[in-house]
Every structure is written in C-alpha cells, then in structure tokens.
C-alpha cells in the first residue's frame, strides 16, 4: 500500500447484515482494514470488500448489532489485517481476532504479518514424505498422516471427533526424530465445553506450553470466524518457516466457517451456488487449507487437521465435499461403528490419505506396509458387500470362504480399529495386529500381498 489515510468518515449510508456501506469515501483500498467506532466509544474492526465510485462496502467482523448509520465513525487504517507474531505466543490463549484473553499482557511482537498470507510457490514446495506416528491403528496402518499434510476429520454431531483430535495432538511423533509438535488450536464457533476439553487435554500432558489457542466460541460474533483460522495459520507460518518448528494446526469446526461465509455472501446479494453457499467457497476454503506443507530448504512444516461436522452426516454437503477436493484425503467417522461401541469409529473405507504411499514402506515404516494396507481395505470392502448380502439371503447361503470374511470383519473392527483413548500403539504393533487379522483368511484370498511377505508374516505369531 502506498499512502496511509486516516480520515474519519461519518458517512455510513446503509447497514445490512454484517455489511456497512460508507459513501463519499476517497483513497480507500480494497481489502483495507477499517476501525469502526460507535457513539458510545466502542470500537470494532472490519475490512473493505468492494470499493469504487465513492462507495466502500465494509464487512464488520464483530457484527453490526447496535450500530446505526448515525453517529458511527469509520476510520480506514491504510493497511490490511495484520497479526503481531512472536514465539512467545505459544502457551497463550487469544480470542478469535488474536487479542489475549488469558489475563496476561499481549506478548511483544517480533513481526507483523498479513493474515491472508501469500500462496506458497508450488515450485518451492517440498513433497511431504515423513511418516507421523499417531499411535492410532486405523490412521497409521491405513490412512497414514504425513508431516506437511492437510488431513481433515469428517464427523457428525455427537461423534468423538474432539477426542480423536486431542489424542492425535497428544501422541503424534515422527519416528526417530524426537522433536515435538507445536500445536495451534483454532476454535471456530465451537461451544465452551469443547474448547475447554482441548485446553485440559493439552494441559494434562504439558503440551500447553508449546500450544497457542485462538478461541471464537459459539457465542462470539459469527463474522470473526472468517478471521480466526487465518490468524492461526499466520502464526503457524511464522513458527514453521521463520522459527523452524513443526506445527500441527487443528481447526474446528470448519462447517461454522462456511456458514459465516454464506451469511456474508447472502448479505451481499451474490448469486448463490449449491445450498446457498457462494460460488467461490472452493477457492475461499483453499486459501485456508493450502497454507500447509513444507518448503525446500526450510526445516519447519505445517500439518493441518481441520475438523468439520457434516450437516445431517451428509458427505456430499458442499463443505465436506469441497474440503475433500482440496485436502490430501479425509478421515471419516462412522455413526454405526460408534453405536456399537467402537472408538475411534473410523470408517476406513471412506477415509483416505493421499500422501500415505510415499511416507510408508521400506525404510520408512516396514516393507509390507503398503500391501498390508491395501489388503486390509480390499478384504474389509469385500466383507461389507457380503454383510449386505447376508442380511438379505441369510448366512446359510454363503460359501465357507464368505463366512470367513464375515468373521474377519468382526475381528478387524474389534481388535484392529478399536483402541482406548489412552492407548498409543506404535506402527510395529499396528502392523502385527493387521497380520493377525489377515491370517484369518485363506492365503489364496490375499491377492494384494506379494509372496515374499506372505512367507514372512502370514500366520506367524509376532
């Protein structure tokens, strides 16, 4: 930006939803930060969404409740929204706009960064290949998390996604490298209980010292939700690429983010896309999710784990659908599994980790890992087909091999998938368990595994 203006305008013309139209403005920049002062002296922040022909459309983050065109003052600050950043933000708690709410003074900033960031040059990205051991068999064995990956958890109301995320934050390590993750937690419109659950679980392990929490809770202004994930990622980028840290970012719940975006779009009277969400939802989500990864020549990394609750458990809803088009896979939770008491209730067939194949196998985990994962899937998928069939025609009309598949699925769910909230299984344990389960099937059914590994592991006690 070239010139800083700090003229104050009293010329608010309209207020509509989160938007405010200010007239007779000059020299206002697109995306500029605006400070709004009410007659009572309270200040709010906003940004310019559209400017021209003497008008500026401003989105007010804290909402427009209580504002009146009369007496409201707008000051254009001559800069975009910037976050003061420093390593000392770890161990602290902030509100959804980045102000400390833990009663301590604001940390002394080392730098100010535009919260929108800038796209990482694809040519400078380093392809992520470091296996992160989460200690959860369904993830490590079949949907491996990689350092620098963005892997969301697709959940539904009432499912234990928060427990799963907290367990991952607590247990995640890279084998052979004893560095711990810095955890950045952004609550986007979640309930107080959920936020304090995370805080407590980080405190339990002492991880809170290397964590920063940004909280926009359910009763905080909805439009702040546009800002909260961006603030969290701005700090993450600073820590990862300036301070060489490995950062794990948890964003919960992205559905609330999408809804805030929809509300703003509706207020602007934009042509809606599917289910009333704006046509640019994909691009907008990408500006959040793409802020993950590794950069050539930099030590640090950003791993993202967004959580979203699928409205009505519908995976084809625009938010999970577009998210999965951007992220490198998804972990899908299943209500059916949870109902029969399986934790973590991960629906492995619908889950996927796109970066898995380059982070596992010889030299990374174990040479049989890719084949074992593929076989677990294929056999479980076959078992699910047979389960559906058995419901209709009865088990008696299935072949003996088919019946083995049914038993396989049962044991797979109870022994391999299920584990306790405090159980941290290493990858060798996970793979051994996988072989134990696969050994229930006849050798001829294991077509995805090469002979070499069959000889080595099939029906051998670990």
């Amino acid at each position: 930006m070239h010139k800083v203006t700090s003229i104050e305008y009293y010329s608010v013309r309209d207020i509509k939803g989160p938007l405010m139209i200010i007239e007779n403005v000059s020299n206002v920049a697109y995306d500029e930060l605006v400070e709004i002062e009410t007659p009572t002296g309270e200040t709010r922040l906003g940004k310019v969404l559209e400017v021209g022909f003497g008008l500026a459309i401003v989105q007010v983050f804290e909402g427009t409740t209580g504002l009146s065109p009369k007496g409201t003052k707008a000051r254009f600050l001559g800069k975009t929204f910037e976050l003061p950043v420093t390593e000392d933000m770890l161990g602290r708690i902030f509100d959804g706009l980045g102000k400390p709410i833990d009663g301590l003074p604001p940390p002394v900033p080392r730098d100010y960064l535009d919260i929108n960031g800038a796209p990482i040059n694809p040519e400078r990205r380093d392809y992520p290949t470091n296996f992160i051991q989460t200690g959860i068999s369904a993830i490590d064995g079949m949907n491996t998390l990689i350092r620098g990956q963005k892997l969301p958890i697709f959940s539904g109301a009432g499912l234990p996604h928060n427990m799963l995320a907290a367990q991952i934050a607590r247990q995640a390590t890279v084998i052979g490298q004893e560095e711990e993750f810095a955890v950045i937690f952004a609550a986007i419109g979640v309930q107080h209980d959920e936020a304090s659950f995370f805080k407590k679980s980080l405190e339990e392990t002492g991880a809170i010292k290397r964590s920063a929490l940004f909280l926009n809770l359910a009763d905080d202004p909805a439009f702040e939700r546009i800002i909260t994930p961006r603030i969290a990622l701005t700090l993450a980028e600073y820590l990862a690429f300036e301070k060489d840290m490995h950062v794990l970012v948890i964003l919960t719940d992205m559905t609330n983010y999408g809804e805030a975006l929809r509300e703003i779009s509706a207020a602007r009277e934009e042509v809606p896309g599917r289910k009333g969400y704006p046509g640019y939802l994909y691009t907008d989500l990408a500006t959040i999710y793409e802020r993950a990864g590794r950069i050539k020549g930099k030590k640090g990394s950003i791993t993202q784990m967004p959580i979203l609750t699928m409205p009505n458990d519908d995976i084809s809803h625009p938010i999970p659908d577009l998210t999965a088009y951007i992220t490198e896979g998804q972990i899908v939770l299943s209500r059916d599994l949870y109902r029969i008491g399986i934790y973590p209730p991960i629906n492995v067939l619908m889950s996927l980790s796109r970066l898995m194949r380059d982070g596992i196998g010889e030299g990374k985990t174990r040479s049989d890992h890719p084949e074992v994962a593929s076989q677990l899937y294929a056999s479980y998928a076959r078992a699910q087909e047979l389960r559906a069939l058995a419901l209709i025609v009865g088990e008696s009309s299935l072949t003996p091999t088919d019946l083995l598949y049914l038993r396989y699925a049962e044991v797979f769910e109870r022994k391999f998938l299920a584990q306790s909230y405090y159980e941290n299984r290493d990858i060798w344990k996970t793979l051994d368990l996988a072989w134990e389960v696969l050994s229930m099937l006849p050798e001829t059914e294991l077509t995805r595994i090469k002979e070499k590994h069959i000889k080595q592991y099939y029906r051998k006690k670990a």
Partner: protein
Amino acid sequence: MSSKVGKISWISGPTVRAEGLEGIKMYEVVYVGYDKLIGEVIAVSGDKAVIQVYENTSGLRPGEPVYKTGEPLSVTLGPGIIGRTYDGVQRPLDIIALKVGFFVKRGVTVDPLPTDRKWFFEPKVKVGEEVVEGDILGFVQETPLIKHAIMVPIGIEGKVSYIAKEGEYYITEVIAEITKNENKYSVNLYQKWPVRRPRPYKERLEPEVPLITGQRIIDILFPIAKGGTAAIPGGFGTGKTVMLHQIAAWCDARVVIYIGCGERGNEMAEVLVKFPELTDPYSGRPLMERTILIANTSNMPISAREASIYTGISIAEYYRDMGYDVVLVADSTSRWAEALREISGRLEEMPAEEGFPPYLASRLAEFYERAGRVVTLGRDKRIGSVTVIGAVSPPGGDFSEPVTVHTLRFVRTFWGLDSALAYSRHYPAINWIISYSLYVDSIAKWWEKFIGKNWLILRRKIQEILQKEDELKEIVKLLGPEALPDNEKLILDVARMIREGFLQQNAFDPIDSYCSVEKQYKMLKLFVEFYENAKATLEKGISLTKIRSMPVIVKLMRCRYTVPNDKTEELDKLHQEIIDSFNKIISE
C-alpha cells in the same frame, strides 16, 4: 491519439473497472495500479473497461493508474519452454522464487524464456529460397528428446534474404529475414501468439492412431486416439489426479503439458519431485525432458486460473505445429469453470445453471475443439496432434451438474470414476459400465496391424463378461450366489478375476504401473482363453469347484505384477500352463 493511461474506478476481488481508456480493445493486456499488476480486459463500453487481474488486488485503490499495452494476452514460444514450471500467465515459477522467495508475491515481471542462454541453431534453408508460413527455417536441440523447429511465423511468406549461420544465438537475436514486396520481416528464435486464438493448420485428419497410456482399462476398453479428447469426471478421492499423473508419465506422446488448474500445491510438488526420477519408457530419458508444467494452485489468483488453460493449449499447438504428438492434461476443468463463474458473478451477469455463466458450454466447446490430429502449415506436410484430457470435479460426485454435462457433449471418450470402486480400493476406479470411447472402431486397425489379431473381438468378450456380471449381481442380491447355475457362477468368477487381475492396476508397483501394449494384448488373450476353456470344461460335466481350485488361477491373477514388460514370453508359458491345467482336470 488514444490515451495510454486510464484510472481505476471500482475494485471487487480480482475484478476491476477502469475509465479513461480510449480505444481499449477486448482481451487487451493492461497493467493495473502502481504495482503494475497484470490484467486482461474482459468487457468494454466506450472508454470504460472491466479488467480481470491476474494477481492479488489487496491494497489497490480507485484512482490508481491503468496502463494500456495494445497487445492481447500472449504466450512467448521458443526454445526453453520444455521442463519449465509456469504460472497461469507463463511466468516461470522458479525465477519468481529467485526474485521474491518462497511465497508468490505480486507485481513481479519475469521473462517466460531465458534471455541469457544461447541455443545452437542449425539452419535448414538458404538465402533466396521461397518460404511460406509454417515452413521450418532451422532447428534448435531444445532437450535430448525435443528438436525444436524454428518456423516461419503465421501470416509471413516471401524470400529468405538472410539466414543465420550454424552457431549459438540468444532467443532475441535475428536468425532470418524474409522479404516480400520490399517488406522485410525479421525472425527471432521466439515468436508470440495470442492465447485465445487457435493456431491454424492445413487439414484435420481422422483420429486412427491410439494414444498408448500403458493403462489396461484405457488402452483396451476405453481407448483414446492421438488428437482425441477425453473427460475424466469423479468425486474426491476417486483417483483423478493419480490417473492423470499416470497418463502424463507413461503415454507415448513426445510432449506432455500438465496444467494444475486450481488444484493442490503438493500435487505439483509431487510431479516436480517424481518426473525427473522417472524415465520415459519410449526413449529412456528423464520424463521432465518432454514435460511442461503449468501450476496455478487453488490458492493462487483465480483469474490466472482462467488463463492457464489457454496458455497451455497454445503451447501445445505450437509443438504440434513442429510435427509432434502433444498431450495436454488439465486438472481440473471444473476449477477453471468456477473461475468463469466467479468473474461472471462479480460482473452481475445473468447466471444460467448453478450460477455458471450461459457461455460455459461454448467456452468448453472452444477449448476441446483445439484438440486434433492435423497436417500442419508448411510445405513439408508434417503431421502433429494435440490430445486433450480434462479432469472434471463434480460437486458431490454428481455427474448431472453443468460442467460434467456440458463437457460430455464435446468429448469422445468418457472415463467415469466411481466412488464405490475407490472405497474398495479398486484403482483405477473407472466404472466399466458407464464409461465409453468413440475411438474403438477407428483405432482397431492399428491394434490388429501392429500388435495382434482379433483385438476388437477379444475386448468385446471382456466387456460382455463384465456386462453379464452386472446383470447377474442383481439376481445375487435377491437370491444369493448359490441360486445360480454353474455356468453363471463361472461368469461371476471370471468377472472377478478380470476386475482384480486385469482392470485393476497398481500405479505404485514398479512393474504394474506401466503395461506395454504387447503385455496388455497377451493378458487380454489369457483372460478370454481362460474363460473359453473353463466354459468348455464345465460343458464336459466337470464341476466348478474343480476349476476354482486350479493353482494356475493365482498365477494368472498375479501376472500383472510378476511378469515384466520385457519378458512377455512368460505369458506364453502361462498360456500353455492354463491349457495343460484344463486338460489335466478333464482327464482326471
């Protein structure tokens, strides 16, 4: 005299309105603001223009200047393109990184081609020779794989009045002069071409040569011809990108252009890491020596995403004009359509279906029509082709949405990806019931002439078995598999063998990743013959259980990753073993 500088009057995201631009033309390139951001005019009214800006417009203010250039958005064509990674408006990303670091910042001007590098030019014409547009003046060895033809630019003809001697030249140096009626035209090693205009050719040819991809389900069941078009729609996680990477890596084209259009940054990183390590099965050279990447990831400016498709296809046509077979892969055309939608929305145009502009269909048609196998301009009648393969990302995996529906009207091959197959880790997850190719008959001659007899009959047999399985599955759902007679159970068995042993292909297995045409043909034959033999054996009264327990089945199922491409004689042995095994159970 028209004014050279106008000023910004309105800004909304990537869309800017400006006034005071007298004589401004549609699709003219302009520089916007003090930072001189690149933009393109997309609507004109008097001296006012609507501009789509290819860079982030944060901080731009009304009143800032807008500079005219008088030129349409163009690509710079010349040696140095191959192996490069460009953004949507042909700026090399590695040079941007050198200038501004690992984040893409705006207002960076960089040359598309290296100006500080000399190329060895080898003239092919003499002074006094008459030349027409498209004639080759000489060659530059661009990479060990690509001999880059320096052609007479479109619209130029006359007598060669100067030609440079064999030797090293910068791309900006004049290497030839062509004179006609006192007018002299200087030719450099590079030329410019407006991206939105298709490059002309002499004549279109029938698509009768298959593009070999090394992927069995494509080459055998749903083939694509050189110069053809294909769409690959699929919901998330169905393996679109892996499929496109496989095609880019293994297809038998001479030049591959991969456009990452609004997709993941890590996917481009993957290509950049892996392609230099992979070798082209046809030449044994690193794949990067024939590949051009255009990367405009989902978080990069949206209007440059719109341009990236045109940048890519113009480069493709240029290499086609040299006589090369070029493959252009666009991942994903849905993101490109979304860019159209966003710009259209900001202009408050009347929307058609789901907010997409009414001109979506005609834009898609224009793009796919730029594919083709042609006789190029120039008197030596070179033949070149551009094959276009576009991924489509339908929301919710629903193929009835506008981008999929309109795309299918303009492409001749349809590879429909299926989430249910992907969930059971059947890759490639191309659904064999809904997919189709309209090139089967025209390329059958090629297969039967060069690879093996009865290709058409054999592949039809496979399709019949799969089709029959699909029908039988409905019955099984109601009555259970035991209710079927043995000959129908056999169809289910063989269909499963075909699915797992033939259609499935592991992109990450060193042997299975690429399957040579010889191996494909022999495997095809093995599966069909297995079925024929099994059927005959059943008819002789031998039980299905006996057939099912034949050890040769496991061998057949595993041959895709046990028999290397250069040892297909092992498949002949396997063939004999199958016949022997059947003879054995018959004689028992």
